[in-house]
């Protein structure tokens, strides 16, 4: 560049320091560059820094965290089926639901510890109680809930201490719904657009998804004569999940777009088809043992697909600056800023 004509613009001799004034003829901003190879929001014109993301995407491993969202829901809603089965005299329903809840929560705890950067320090989760941290609240919830499900399952298997087992089953059913829905707050309480913007409906999506997963497990494992509540829960859960999910995507605006793109799109589509199909099959043909198993498998898979779809949509929305910049620009414009 030597020999070029970049001038110093009136600062000869004296060092300008912090009072230096840049050229009065400032340049125009470059707009809409660096959008990368994915034509995600073709119409939105916005500036970015070489297309780099504004946010840092969550460092979580999909299998651990999306898997945890799924298993936590499965466990929480299974505890409800377990308590219901116990209270209404359906041991064939209660037993697998108890075992399912205990197994799912054990696996999910393993996934959570595995995902930590310092797994040996997992007990630091119980160092403080912070209502502002959904992860802190969730840790304490799980610390109360997991022993209850394990107690319920252990007494079921052992066939002893039935009173203790009943108490644990009912207590687990009280905490179970919170375990199933707090995970929505866990995701929403971030700057990730596709997670935060859905905070009103996401807990209901997860509640429905938890219900279909637990109903699916019961349909697959419970004799048809005692699986009536599971069939009805499958239908009600599917309606809640799919309805809330539709409503969420409609209301989110631009931040809903990642649900319809890439890996998230495939997962979410699969989730909707499997959940709706499984629920219809359970309702119409749930008294056929083999078809009930097929319906249960579809519901279990559908619930998992939904959680992974939501997870991947969030990551995608964090990786693309459009989802951060464009809605914030629109917000400023609406305020007249």
């Amino acid at each position: 560049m030597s020999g070029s004509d970049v001038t110093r613009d009136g600062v000869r001799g004296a060092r300008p320091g912090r009072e230096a004034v840049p050229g009065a003829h400032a340049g125009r901003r470059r707009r809409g560059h660096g959008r990368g190879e994915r034509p995600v929001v073709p119409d939105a014109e916005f500036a970015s820094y070489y297309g780099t993301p504004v946010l840092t995407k969550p460092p979580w491993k999909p299998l651990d965290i999306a898997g945890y969202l799924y298993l936590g829901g499965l466990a929480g809603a299974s505890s409800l089926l377990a308590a219901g089965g116990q209270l209404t005299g359906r041991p064939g329903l209660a037993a697998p639901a108890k075992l399912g809840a205990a197994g799912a929560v054990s696996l999910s705890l393993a996934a959570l510890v595995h995902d930590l950067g310092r797994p040996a320090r997992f007990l630091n989760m119980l160092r403080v109680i912070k209502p502002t941290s959904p992860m802190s609240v969730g840790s304490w919830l799980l610390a109360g809930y997991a022993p209850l499900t394990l107690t319920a399952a252990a007494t079921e298997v052992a066939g002893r201490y039935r009173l203790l087992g009943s108490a644990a089953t009912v207590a687990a059913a009280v905490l179970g719904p919170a375990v199933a829905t707090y995970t929505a707050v866990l995701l929403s309480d971030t700057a990730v657009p596709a997670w935060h913007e859905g905070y009103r409906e996401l807990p209901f999506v997860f509640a429905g998804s938890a219900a279909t997963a637990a109903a699916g497990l019961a349909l697959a494992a419970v004799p048809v004569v005692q699986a009536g509540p599971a069939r009805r829960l499958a239908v009600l859960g599917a309606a809640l999940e799919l309805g809330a999910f539709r409503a969420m995507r409609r209301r989110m605006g631009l931040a809903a777009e990642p649900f319809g793109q890439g890996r998230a799109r495939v997962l979410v589509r699969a989730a909707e088809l499997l959940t709706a199909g499984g629920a219809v099959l359970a309702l119409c043909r749930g008294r056929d043992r083999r078809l009930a198993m097929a319906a249960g498998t579809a519901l279990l898979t559908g619930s998992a697909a939904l959680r992974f779809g939501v997870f991947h949509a969030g990551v995608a929305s964090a990786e693309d600056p459009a989802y951060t910049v464009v809605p914030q620009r629109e917000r400023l414009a609406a305020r007249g800023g």
Partner: protein
Amino acid sequence: MGEEDGMGDGAEDRGNALYGPQPDVAGASGYPDAPPRVGFFTDTSVCIGCKACEVACKEWNAIPADGLALTGMSYDNTRGLGADAWRHVAFVEQRGPFGGPEPSAAQDDAGDVDVFTAAARISPASPDGGTGLRWLMASDVCKHCTHAACLDVCPTGSLFRTEFGTVVVQEDICNGCGYCVPACPYGVIDRREDDGRVWKCTLCYDRLGVGLEPACATSCPTDSIQFGPLEELRERARARVAQLHAAGATDARLYGESPDDGVGGAGAFFLLLDEPEVYGLPPDPVVTTRDLPAMWRQAALAAVSLTALAAGSFARRRR
């Protein structure tokens, strides 16, 4: 890091609103006789892109090397803030209203760039000697928000508010859950992969404790990075904007200085010469925990709904 003070453990949010102005941020975190809140005013209009701040920060805080790669993003090969980059100098090349031919047009058939040809094509295109090019440089850093989402969501109490009103990670507590990473509306904090814990600017907490300025501000040769009590910096910044506007630089604007913004005002704020997103900053960040009470309410409603669905599934049999 100097976290001898047990004050930060679990007391971060006592009496503190989740959103809106908070004039006594240290007091709200449990420091009755806190010193004045300190911060950075980064005046990008005098940044010369020397990266002394990046180097001083790395040296003082013993941040490990994070690889060497040429990004093609002007002189920026740091890319952005992260676990191993607590200061980051952004470089933005802009073509002004008098724009000449693109230097990159000087490619030969083999695709190689002849830098001399390219340089020759950057010619003064306007009578006043301007080149039609503008080079923006800005040293980015953790904003040390008044309402810090990273601190709010940290489940271990590892992130805490210092007596200076800054936000610091206690590395002996952090278990690497990574929740603070997506919570930050600026994408500042990140997990160090081989270490497992999260790291970010401490505003040189150890130096503040003994009356020193942070390393980056000390090393900045043009006073682009100014350190001091936040109130004083805000006043100085407003005067600086007025000075620039009077000189015709009407693009100058402050970013993050207002206590009325979405994070209650940043402890580290900036004077920019273009829109924030041009520098990779969010134009209107809002702390995610503003909506947390509503989120808990919705989750509670959803939990009750789930219980009702299950109850309904059992009850309908009795018809």
